[in-house]
């Protein structure tokens, strides 16, 4: 669980280099932010899973999770701003 939070945080730091300091600082203070990082990582992992899935709904699911990752990014931006 904590590993998924850290992976999500690392992914966000790569995504927003100019917000690394804010992310690092708030991550240690805000349990909800840590949970959102985990959710963000889960959304990307699910998007990757469904993008490779032979299921008829694979593409639709991958798009849904990409959109969910973007929405979670917005939640995180609000949380650290």
């Amino acid at each position, binding site marked *: 669980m*904590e590993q998924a939070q850290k992976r999500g945080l690392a992914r966000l730091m790569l995504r927003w280099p100019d917000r690394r300091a804010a992310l690092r600082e708030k991550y240690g*203070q805000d*349990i909800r932010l840590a*949970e959102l990082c985990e959710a963000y990582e889960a959304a990307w992992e*699910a998007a990757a899973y469904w993008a490779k899935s032979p299921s008829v709904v694979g593409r639709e699911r991958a798009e849904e999770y990409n959109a969910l990752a973007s929405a979670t990014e917005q939640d995180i931006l*609000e949380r650290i701003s």
Partner: protein
Amino acid sequence: MDGKVLTEGEEPSPGEVLSALEALVASGSFRISERNRRFLSFVVNQTIGGRSDRIKAYSIGVDVFGRDDSFDPTVDPIVRIEATRLRSALNAYYDGAGSGDRIRITIPRGSYVPTFGWAAGLPGRDGRDCLLEGMVAEIVDGTLAAVVIHDHSDQADPEVALRGELFTDALLPLLRKARFKTLVVPSVERSAATGSINALFAHPGETYSLDIAVRPLAERRRYSWRFSDLRNGEVLASDFRDFVAKATPCFELIDDLAETAAQSISAVIASH
């Protein structure tokens, strides 16, 4: 913070919860997607309808997110992700625009079943802080032991304040499980609850204080607790541990210390 909600004692009625839900989802300050509004409404309605056992990732996936009966939450974690976003939105709302809301709807981590409680320090149904008033009455009757947790960590230091809050959060469920009425001395801005707790202090019933603190000591953080009988000031148990400070608080170590503290307190009370 949603963790400051007290859920002991009388809960809001189903009608009051539904009114609170309506006001919440109608609020422009509560920023969630339409399907997360349906998610919240679904779990609240199932719970007040006595069907909380139906609240599982599978049923939410099918009934709220339109998945078919082949839905597998392990590869399709939509419910888990949206629940996290919903908890964050609830937390942000009650910390901001909804800080004056009397009824708090929370979805504890690890579950999708919501809990309903009165906001600590705000007037209850009849204008009083009913939880605390009720506790005072029970303690005066001598039928229950109450523990008042007072976090002495430096609130001006966000890092130790966070750790103190985590320590309090870890202690609360353990003390409640040990059947103590548990109260937390609120922050200074919540003076209504402070008044009620002071009333508790003034009564000679079976009331104990649990003073905790997290203090910085160079690269370490000292977590300490002290359990006292408020009737005579006697310190019945105390302990501390020093943990090396890391960027992320050491949740397992805090939980472990809280468990040890709760066990020690239960043992002291049993032999007292």
